């Protein structure tokens, strides 16, 4: 226990206090954003090269280091100044306009924090994995390296490269360490995600060649005066890009990879995928599609919003009917991602801020919920809801944490879910209001219905699994409460969720520093 705490605190302190100082005191010796990508990749190589008994310690050390860097990035970002900061630039292929370009704005700073938190928790939750342990941690670290890169890249080439780089380890993680129909799920997940990215890629290339200035630089592509995309071009490509990104965010009808994938994936992989990789969908719509094609966005979003509404309600209804513990959570995640996309569709400052905060919140909360499901499954050896029951008596701490996680999912004030959902609905209520009634005023009450449904299926879940009489007579003796190492990551995620829920101001300010200028530029619905 003490060795674990030492392995966490020492690197965390080192990377927070020693490696980097404030940029105002001159340039850092280490580029902080590149370090953030390199740490997990370095971790993969270190694990490959060292004996198996060190594996999890190396991974924990590196994850804590990563967490420290993320805190530092969060502290270094100057909200008042806004815009892209800590930019690192290096020419890569000049004649194709490709640059190695990293940078964060308020929105990606939050995502960087999210990646590090889930990486840290995922490492701890995989502590007792025994099958092909070394390969597991190698792939897990590579996956983190990929998503970390995707959130920091400001060049479309590298964005795409890092994103797909993350999909590949996912395939193997689900295929090897998964459960149930794992090979089917792995294949489905990979093919659907990559099919979505095929549209993204062609869209990127089309943007590159159609713009007046041949570049993949996201900052420049977000300036219509420079790129000169015609309204026709935007109207053709915006829906394709939206759906391409939407596949990652499991937008209806391309959501089917998600329940199967999460149902089969090993715990840490579902945490990382639901919490971090999936959030990339909404993130990249805000980052790439909206600023570069505002006319297309305003033309299409009132139509595409229907899809996100189906996401919210349909997935919630399906979650009600599930017999498998993990599938409920998987569908709940689909439903929440629908809410994120719904927030984006409003094109309102409040709605988009809500989407960003909800992305952060959903990442933390979904990771926490999946961690809990994995831990309970490891003890009860079944995920069938009919066979579970009364577990609260055997595992009071895990039971309590699960209730907290359920409340965070439902959006109880004080937890992070509330802040995001409140802002999203505020945004949808106000969307287009100044110019009269819009479709959002009709849709808004329907979307709120989603929250009610969420409460229904989560309470049902809590009741079926943790309350009531113990169904399994052996459970009393055989099923025990979580150990320190199992509780630690879940409690950590809960703490983050509480922090966002109780004092959202720094997070919302951070997100607003990126969103407000964007909406100002696009103009919203009139």
């Amino acid at each position, binding site marked *: 226990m003490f060795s674990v705490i030492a392995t966490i605190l020492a690197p965390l302190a080192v990377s927070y206090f020693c490696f980097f100082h404030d940029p105002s005191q001159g340039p850092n010796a280490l580029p902080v954003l590149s370090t953030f990508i390199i740490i997990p990749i370095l971790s993969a190589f270190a694990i490959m090269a060292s004996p198996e008994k060190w594996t999890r310690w190396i991974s924990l050390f590196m994850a804590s280091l990563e967490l420290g860097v993320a805190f530092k990035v969060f502290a270094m970002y100057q909200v008042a100044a806004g815009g892209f900061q800590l930019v690192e630039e290096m020419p890569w*292929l000049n004649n194709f306009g490709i640059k190695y370009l990293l940078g964060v704005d308020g929105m990606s700073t939050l995502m960087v924090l999210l990646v590090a938190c889930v990486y840290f928790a995922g490492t701890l939750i995989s502590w007792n994995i025994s099958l*092909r342990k070394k390969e597991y941690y190698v792939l897990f670290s590579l996956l983190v390296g990929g998503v970390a890169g995707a959130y920091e890249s400001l060049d479309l080439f590298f964005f795409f490269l890092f994103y*797909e*780089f993350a999909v590949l380890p996912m395939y193997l993680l689900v295929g090897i360490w998964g459960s149930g129909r794992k090979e089917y799920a792995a294949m489905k997940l990979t093919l659907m995600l990559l099919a979505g990215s*095929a549209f993204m*890629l*062609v869209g990127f*290339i089309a943007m590159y060649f159609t713009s007046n200035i041949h570049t993949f630089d996201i900052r420049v592509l977000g300036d219509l005066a420079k790129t000169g995309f015609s309204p026709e071009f935007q109207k053709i490509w915006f829906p394709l890009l939206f759906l391409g990104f939407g596949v990652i965010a499991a937008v209806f009808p391309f959501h089917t990879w998600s329940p199967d994938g999460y149902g089969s994936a090993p715990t840490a992989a579902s945490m990382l995928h639901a919490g971090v990789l999936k959030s990339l969908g909404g993130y990249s719509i805000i980052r790439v599609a909206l600023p570069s094609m505002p006319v297309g966005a305003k033309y299409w979003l009132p139509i595409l919003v229907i899809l996100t509404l189906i996401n919210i309600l349909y997935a919630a209804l399906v979650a009600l009917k599930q017999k498998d513990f993990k599938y409920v959570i998987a569908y709940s995640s689909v439903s929440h991602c629908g809410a994120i996309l719904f927030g984006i569709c409003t094109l309102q400052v409040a709605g988009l801020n809500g989407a960003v905060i909800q992305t952060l919140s959903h990442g933390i909360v979904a990771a926490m919920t999946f961690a809990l499901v994995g831990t309970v499954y490891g003890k009860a050896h079944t995920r069938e809801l009919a066979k579970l029951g009364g577990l609260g008596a055997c595992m009071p701490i895990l039971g309590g944490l699960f209730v907290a996680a359920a409340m965070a999912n439902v959006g109880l004030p004080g937890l992070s879910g509330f802040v995001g959902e409140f802002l999203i609905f505020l945004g949808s209520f106000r969307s287009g209001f100044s110019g009269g009634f819009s479709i959002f005023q009709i849709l808004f009450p329907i979307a709120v219905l989603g929250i009610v449904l969420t409460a229904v299926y989560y309470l049902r879940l809590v009741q079926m699994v943790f309350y009531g009489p113990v169904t399994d007579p052996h459970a009393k003796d055989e099923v025990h409460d979580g150990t320190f190492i199992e509780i630690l990551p879940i409690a950590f995620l809960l703490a983050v969720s509480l922090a966002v829920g109780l004092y959202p101001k720094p997070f919302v300010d951070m997100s607003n520093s990126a969103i407000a200028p964007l909406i100002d530029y696009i103009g919203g619905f009139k």
Partner: protein
Amino acid sequence: MIQISAFLPELWLVCTAMLILVVELFLKPQSSRSIHNVLATLGTLGALFSLLCLSGTCLFSACQAPETPQAFGGFLRSDGLALFFKMVIILGTLLTLLISFRYFKSRSTHYPAEFLAVLLFSAAGASALASAQEIITLYVSLETLTISSYLLASFMKKDKGSNEAGMKYLLLGAFSSALLLFGLSYIYGLTGTTLIAGIAKSLSTQTTSPMLVLALILVIAGLGFKISIAPFHMWTPDVYEGAPTPVTAFLSVVSKTAGFAAFIRIFWVGLSSLSATPIWVGLFAVLAVMSIVLGNLEAIPQKNIKRMMAYSSIAQAGYISTGFLAGGPMGLTAVLFYLFVYLFANLGTFLAIVIVAHKTGSEQIEDYAGMWKRSPLIGVVLLVCLLSLAGVPPFAGFSGKWYLFGAAVHMGYTWLALVGMVFSVISLFYYLQVVRQALISEAKDASPIDMTLLERSVLILCVVITVTLGFWPTPIMNLAQAAANSLF
């Protein structure tokens, strides 16, 4: 004036081949194999070395056309494009040699020297083709390559599959060569010259005649056979499956590369007049789509890995064609870069196939189960090389496809790029089947698969190159660009 440096690599290859044939007369069959192997490797390395010396003076410093070494009245000229193609061809031959060493370890053949000699002759033909500036020279080099390949495909004479492969290849190949020659004769008739540059000059003053269209179709059909683009791909699966594995590897990389060299010379130099280009580019777009669709869809149900690789190579020809028909410095750069990437990914896979087949005696995909336990390196090689072929980042195939489809979109073929991307995803399905067996499934027989130090290091080299070029394509990109620019 004949500058020997214009055909020095070919000279190395031909002389080595003849030396092997002579040396064989004086050696006992049992002891001779390793000597032949060493001779062949040294000869090919010599060719590579002479090529690098040449590239050093020419490709990197982008020298002017009159300075490029030429021979036989300008019929052979080692310009930048030729040098790049020769590099791919000779590297491919080198790796094929290594594959053949392992292949013949488990099979007794009485003619080890002949195999190596014919292989080197074939490589010399491909290499000469790359620098041919005149259609007769081009045709003769192509036939040197092809006729040697017939011999190679049917080399295992006691083996039914190999015989069938050789026979099929010979009959269809001879037919396609005839078509090509017929088409070229029309072009000669229309222009009155056999020099490719002369053809371009003559055509630029002509309007399109039906004769020219017929010639275009015939030449595309004849050459399309060599790069196995649909619908001229029928021979590919049978020949790839039946032929000895090193020969399959050779056909899939070297022969295809040479075919593209011929395509670029004839079409982008000779037939790129304003009136003719839209016709054959349109034709090519149809063929590219057909190859991508047919190759990928037919690869899915395959159980034999060599047959799967055959269909995969048809699809790859389709991808490369999209860059080829986009043309211009950008499209050709993409084609050259992709061929370089394809070389290592494909030959790495074939080397793994040969090593596994040597141990298990099987080429069925299901027998790759549990490779992560039996030989982790082969598991990693299959993962990296096959996914590079599928175009998944961060492997080199991804940056290759990015440029190919980028060039296509640039020239207004967005739909073609979209088809290519969608089918790249579909192709993942069958590539991942192999990866799934190799890395996920449990082994039926867990005995380890061993390999020599040389094979191990070559496999690692393939992986390293494929990964590095995915992240950092710049050096080879610059080289490819210099080579493509030598045409324009």
